[in-house]
């Protein structure tokens, strides 16, 4: 394969990993807001809510990055995926919009958040809606249900994206977000609250592991084509690394080494998604649309990659500045820094 397409596809994958690793934790914050329990339920909610403040919008831009990279470098894949997955993508989008808006209203309103229960419920429910349907949409590319003819998705039944494989994929999306948020929070909290997040992180880690393991037999029965690619010897690399990182995260949480656990948790997510992408390779839509078929002409790919290099030279130092300024401490009082 000409490496240009490969590099462009890698850009899409990296964008997706960044979105999952950063914005995924923000969705996880919404999930654990709904699941807050015990004597410190209120502090859990407040701390999760405040931590999202300075970073959610930047994290959200990774989604725009992925969508734009997809239609610039792989216009055909973009068209086919959005045609075939209209319903799950629209559902995820509704979740994304309502989450962002509910958060902004609650966080920046002059009113006490306690007087706005509806925005709190919308925030939590939409934080679950988005990762569940994004998980479905991503795994649907490997579910062997989409049919592509002459560069166009064939008319599908509106529910043909609902398969055991994609439903478990949606649950993995949820578990992934629920896994990242408490581990990131453990770094930013102390005492009993930190212990709360530690326990929740470990529970979610187990859930993520169980669901991912469950996806394997489901693939064997539901999507033999993906199963065959998954058990290829070359796949042992990413799968092995992901399993090791997942177990390491649990051990680090057990030992209360939160900073390392945070890195290991993000690594697990990156490993999981890389493993999925590697099994899907060389296709965008399994067995139907190859990366090379979907790619834009060479001139576009070259300019796409040049822009990426120049843009990254500005973007990466800016991101480091943002997370260096706001990642070190727990921004409990962030909400009072303006106005």
């Amino acid at each position, binding site marked *: 394969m000409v490496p240009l397409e490969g590099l462009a596809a890698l850009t899409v994958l990296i964008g997706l990993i960044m979105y999952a690793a950063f914005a995924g934790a923000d969705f996880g914050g919404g999930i654990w807001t709904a699941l807050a329990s015990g004597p410190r339920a209120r502090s859990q909610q407040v701390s999760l809510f405040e931590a999202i403040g300075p970073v959610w*919008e930047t994290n959200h831009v990774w989604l725009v990055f992925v969508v734009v990279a997809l239609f610039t470098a792989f216009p055909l894949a973009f068209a086919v995926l959005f045609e075939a997955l209209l319903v799950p993508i629209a559902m995820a989008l509704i979740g994304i919009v309502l989450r*962002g808006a509910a958060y902004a209203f609650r966080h920046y309103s002059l009113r006490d958040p306690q007087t706005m229960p509806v925005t709190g419920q919308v925030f939590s429910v939409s934080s679950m809606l988005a990762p569940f349907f994004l998980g479905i949409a991503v795994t649907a590319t490997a579910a062997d249900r989409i049919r592509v003819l002459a560069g166009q998705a064939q008319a599908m039944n509106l529910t043909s994206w609902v398969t055991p494989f994609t439903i478990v994929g949606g649950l993995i999306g949820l578990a992934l977000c629920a896994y990242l948020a408490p581990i990131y929070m453990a770094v930013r909290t102390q005492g009993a609250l930190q212990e709360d997040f530690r326990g929740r992180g470990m529970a979610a880690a187990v859930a993520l592991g169980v669901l991912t393991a469950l996806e394997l037999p489901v693939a064997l029965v539901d999507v033999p084509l993906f199963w065959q690619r998954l058990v290829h010897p070359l796949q042992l690399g990413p799968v092995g690394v992901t399993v090791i990182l997942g177990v390491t995260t649990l051990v680090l949480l057990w030992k209360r080494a939160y900073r390392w656990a945070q890195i290991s948790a993000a690594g697990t997510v990156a490993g999981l998604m890389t493993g999925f992408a590697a099994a899907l390779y060389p296709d965008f839509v399994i067995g139907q649309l190859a990366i090379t078929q979907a790619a834009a002409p060479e001139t576009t790919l070259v300019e*796409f990659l040049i*822009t990426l290099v120049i843009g990254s030279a*500005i973007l990466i130092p*800016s991101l480091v500045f*943002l997370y260096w300024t706001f990642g070190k401490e727990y921004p409990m009082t962030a909400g009072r820094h303006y106005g």
Partner: protein
Amino acid sequence: MASDMDTLLSARALMGISLAFHIVYVAFGIGMPFDIMVAEGLALRTGNEMYHQLARRWVRPLVVLVAIGAVSGTVLSFELGLLWPRFMAFSGALIGLPFWLEAFAFFIEAIFLSAYIYGERRLSRRTLFLCTIPVVVGSIASAVFVISANSWMNTPAGFQLAGSEPVPGNLSNVDPLQAFANPAWLHELLHGTLATYVACNMMIAGVYALAILRGHLTEYNKRALTLVLAVAGIAAPLQIFLGDFAAVSVARLEPAKLAAMEALFHTTQGAPETILGWPDPARGEVRYALEIPRLLSILAYQDPNATVQGLDAFPPGTTPNPVLTHPSFDLMVGLGFLMAIVVIWFWGLRWLRKEVPSGKWTMRAVLIASPFGLIAQELGWFTTEFGRQPWIAAGTMSVAQGVTPDSGIEAVLIAFVGVYVALTIGLVRLVPVRAPDGGRSALQGGPHGSS
């Protein structure tokens, strides 16, 4: 084929509603960072704390408006795929580049806006000011990039088409840089970006004019009003000239759009300028209009005898509807002139009396003109979009060829209209302009009015 028509209408309606909604937030997302940068700069330079407090007071409304702009912009990027996948399959390789550049600009804007908002206690005053610069640059760059994608739809460039079918397989000699710098880009980016400054600053000026009318004639309100009307005082009159430049460019690049804008049914030598009136396509005339002889030829071609192409110069079925385009255009121009008159009036009084004008009639004029910028921005966008019909990429691909083959777009339309209604209710009800204590606005009032 009835269901295909429903899909097309629903897709157009949803895209139109989404953009009309998004544009409002964009105006503030681009306009307000500039005001904040100016205020922080003045605070640093003059040592007057009031400017810093002014800037910080704008943060709360700005951040909500930017958040809504960000999510509504995301909706648009998804709708390109959900509603127009065939258009994107064809043109993604050509117009993807400006969107790709915009993604980076958007990152820079979001990162430094967050740093500015949350950095009050962690960053020095100087660093805070420096953070506003990339926000301003990023927001302008976002606008300039995304407008390139729109101007490509008006004047497609950077490719060759084998055959007449606009499908990706027929594309050759794809040159994204040429597509990026397409002919309509320059006038659109100047006119479109400046429009956000006019719209935003007129709207904010209205808030302070209202406060002054209600008796809050404070030093703080006067300085705030002066600052935003200084920006609008440059932007609104300048926009008249850029608008003229845009119209002259449209005459050259998109003659059918100009004919629809001016409701010129028949190709005419020494064409008159038709002001207002109601175009009647069936009879090929404009009723109740005011006609100024030869003015259109003079404006479009600087020649009173120039021939201007009418709608009849183009094959039937390939021209835009003047009933939608002409009133949008004329109203936009009218509102633009009214705003320019108001700001010139304000600065004329300021110059004559050597003090900030705060009289009842001046403040009323500012208040009445305050929504004109946002309305003109929407009308200008109506003009360029209705004026391109029936094409999604002028002369190359029709809107009907670009739409999704999926059924069920009506349901998506209903769902998203519901989302927009919810967002609007949320904004109005949950982001109170009135603070609980003094009953003063989050924008207006003194520096200690609320919080």
